[in-house]
């Protein structure tokens, strides 16, 4: 049991390290899309919510799970759509001229 936690800690620290190194290279230009992207990605907690909602532990647990699935789905669906919408607006000068002509 303890080794599991140690392995999980490894994963956490390494993922944080990878995240730190990638995110410091994201230009300020894209900081808002970055935030909405990480928000959408962290909606992966939906996988925990799905298990809670579908396990039939108790009625209360199922209802809490359902609300959690709802909240996480809002972030999955809304988060990825709005990130895509924003990123679609960042265009090259040439691309703009093409679109205009």
């Amino acid at each position, binding site marked *: 049991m303890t080794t599991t936690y140690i392995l999980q800690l490894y994963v956490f620290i390494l993922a944080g390290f990878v995240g730190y190194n990638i995110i410091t290279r994201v230009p300020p*230009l894209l*900081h808002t899309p970055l935030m909405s*992207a990480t928000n959408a990605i962290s909606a992966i*907690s*939906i996988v925990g919510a799905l298990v809670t909602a579908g396990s039939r532990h108790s009625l209360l647990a199922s209802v809490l799970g359902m609300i959690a699935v709802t909240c996480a789905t809002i972030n999955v669906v809304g988060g990825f759509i709005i990130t895509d919408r924003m990123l679609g607006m960042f265009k090259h000068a040439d691309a703009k001229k093409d679109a205009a002509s």
Partner: protein
Amino acid sequence: MLTIVATEASGGSMTRMLLTQATYLAAGVFFILGLKSLTHPDSARKGMQQAAIGMLLAIVGTLIVEEIVEYQWIIAGLVVGTAIGYPLGTRVPMTAMPQRIAVSHMFGALAASLVGIAEYLHRTGPDAHEVLPRAQMAALGFEVLFGSLTVTGSFMAFGKLQEFLPGRPVTYAGQNAVNIGAFIVTIGLWGYLIYDPTAAWAFWAMTAAAFIIGISLVLPIGGADMPVVVSLLNSYAGLAASATGFAIGNTVLIIAGALDGASGFILSIIMSKAMNRSFGNVIFGAFGAAPESTARSTAGLTVKSITAEDAAIQLAYAGKVIVVPGYGMAVAQAQHTVRELAELIEKKGGEVKYAIHPVAGRMPGHMNVLLAEANMPYEKLYDMEEINAEFATADVALVIGGSLMKLVSEVKQV
């Protein structure tokens, strides 16, 4: 597909588990690649679409796990969530991004907290066959603690940005002492829970206290400090998601939460630096109380007022113009007017660049999005450090707060 899985349940449970884990691994890889794609605007869109596919894979991979025995609650949640999430993605205007993000931190944190609460109920309930191990209790407690304070904190930030709560700082004597005291008590309850995971009263008291801390943490913060708060809440929501991963033994949650936590942490540091405040000042909740020290003294400088006509003449004959947009421009919806002005200057042979302060909007990078929406090519948007040196060679620096219509018509005439 579900029926096939059901018939194979006895023999194929190992295969199923491996399949699920494979989708999680794929999701983790896609998420990291997606974030990596955000280092350049040309690759970003495609990368994030891949990340969305990773998410879809992980969801499908989860739907086949053995613990899930009924689907009605799941389907209800997915349907309601999509119905709310879709318009939140497609309809919200770019000026409302900060409150949109604040509310999504609230949803994310609420999901994490509820999973934690349900897990605690299950693991300490009548049908639990073993006492909750302390390490797991620590993760669960952390998840619920940070999740709950992010829920109310984000709600407060949302209210202030959406302006149904007072945007100015709400302060009272001894506020910091009260906040720090409440935080110590909450951490104490968390510690007690780790010592005795069966103490349900401590669990509920901790949850309630965390909700209250979230409110009192954001209460003293004004609108201009929101970029720091939103970044910090982003980090907290990520940490809560990561703790969920520890509590339920799910690696992809740990990875995604760590990425989110790191991102929010870095953005908070960048934002507080941009506002000339130390990160410690921000972390320890003193942030609304900081003095307005950023304004430099103007003593000894001469101020000359000029008319719109004069300004227009200067702009029309300028070789290099640097535009410094402020939040007032966004409030007045003047981005398109600014672009019109820039096009006029360019037509007359000038060059226009935009200098963007990190906290020019209401969240990190907000101003860039507003300008991109108004069709400014991203090559012309420069951040503070890139362009500061260029001010020396610029003919005109145009600092914009509010309306510009007059200036535009004057430049047209020239």
